[in-house]
């Protein structure tokens, strides 16, 4: 289940997230925290989706994690659609990453693979 990026692969640029945990205040739409936040993980071909993993998620602040969820959704919903609406609400995706990334062994798990599976079964979930 690879992610296909819209442009050819180019040299990676590291933009590692840093600091913060879930005690950070939530990012507010249009607020300064979200405006400044960058998605977590290694950026390749303009996106973190291919490489962001649970280690990156753990290192991110709440605001960084939230913009990461949005970036994941943008690429993991129908590319021919006008928007990136998903049956998996962003808040629920955030909760799932928080839980799935917690075990010691989970650091290398790719966020996009977790997202795609959770999204697939989201309409059956509570």
């Amino acid at each position, binding site marked *: *289940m*690879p*992610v*296909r990026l819209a442009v050819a*692969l180019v040299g*990676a640029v590291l933009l590692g997230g840093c600091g913060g945990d879930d005690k950070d205040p939530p990012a507010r*739409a249009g607020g300064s925290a979200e405006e400044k936040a960058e998605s977590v993980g290694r950026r*390749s071909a303009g996106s973190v989706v*291919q490489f962001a*993993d649970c280690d990156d998620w753990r290192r991110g602040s709440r605001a960084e994690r939230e913009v990461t969820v*949005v970036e994941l*959704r943008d*690429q*993991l*919903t*129908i*590319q*021919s*659609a*006008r*928007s*990136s*609406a*998903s*049956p998996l*609400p*962003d*808040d629920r995706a955030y909760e*799932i990453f928080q*839980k*799935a990334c*917690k*075990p*010691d*062994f*989970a*650091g*290398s*798990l*790719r966020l996009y*693979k*977790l997202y*795609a*599976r*959770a*999204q*697939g*079964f*989201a*309409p*059956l*979930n*509570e």
Partner: protein
Amino acid sequence: MRQVQPAEMEGSGPRPTDVKLDAGKDYTGTGPSAKPGGHTKHVVLRVDRGDGFVGRNFLMRGGLEFGFYTEETDGVLLDKTKFYWNADYGHLSFTSDHHVVKNCDGFGAGDAVVYPGAAPETGAQATDFYPDAPRANTVIKQCDMRGSGLGYSGSMGNGVRITNNHIYGNSTGIATDTLSAAGHPGFPADSSEIDNNLIYSNNLNLYRKDAPVKPLITVPVGTGIIYAGINDARVHDNWIFDNWRDGVMLFAVPDALTSACSGEPQSVKFGTDTSCGAEGEVLPGVSCAGAPANGLSTSCNNRFYNNKMGQVPPGFKFPTMIDQFGTSRSIEAVRPMPNGNDFWWDEFSSNRWNCWYSNTGEDGTGASVSGAGEAGRTPGVPPNALPNCAGGGNRESSVGNGDVAKERYLVDCSEGPDEETGPLDCDWWSTPPRPGSAAAVNNSASFARAARRFAKTARAQRLRSRMADLISGG
């Protein structure tokens, strides 16, 4: 390489490992199997639209992503190639036709050793664009796929044949899915054929802190084959043994679960999108009744026959490399080597024409074939059927009854790992007990009451309602 037609690369040594295309660095150890401590390139060898490419007799090692990567290529032959320690996939083909990978060997992939994804619609949904269809467009044969998260994977792997391979020592041996419909043309996946393979001891637990291969994916440890949403598949004449959870899993992925398809806002933060459907056009020929209009397009008309489950071929010996990463396995001298359960089916309501027949179980008879499996640590809801379809002659007799316990189980597993180990929690992230052991028996008995309690709860009723809504198009 880009648009070089045709091209051929052949290693000049007597063995494939004599010529290494290497993207790794800082190796621990020596020799071709040495593990890289880092990577210098994303992809070792990339061939896009390179029709007629032939690669033979070399090793692709140490890619940050893939060993071999091709897109939109008509005609590729990889022969006697190896894929070692590529962090994501050893081999990845996408939207490519007339593709053959044979006599290959690979390990050390965090996802899969071999991955043909978004394969062309040359199966049940073929149009006159492919006048020679139905046919396989990709063939994987005579390979060893081992020591990885998955030996084989293919999202939207239409018309792929997997034959005469050894697939062992992975977390899960083979996975074909429709979960990742976005970005993958060819929905729904159909016409996979898996035949004459040896699929065994896929019990490698990578969900531990000291895992020898970093897992990128979440799959059930101890499983031979997973079909997550496929139609018209044929699984036959394989030896499938010593997979401690399930030999073969089949479950549905309804369309509504794979695409943003609603006139109502579905995201808290984003507005209405009336776009609907899977990526690209859904071609006619979907085997599920009423599909694709009713939104239930996967897990119909699959057949499983003439497989030897839990039995070991005469003269079989484990390959030396099965112990490379310490996968759990049976003792070689012991026969048979049962799977935890032979065939697992979610029995999703309305799924039709799925048939299991002429298979034999661990004692060599049809009576010893086990299925349709339980809901993880808890039993499925009776009758837990595994339709025989009158020996394959009456497919109309097979329709899923719906099993709320199994759907709850799949939902929980879809959310990835956690540290919860209760009776209703997903159990994919640990090695199952050896089939037939006291631990295996005790697990089943101790959790049975929890399943019965769950079936009576309000949560179970809500899940039934959501399944009914999906089926009715609500």
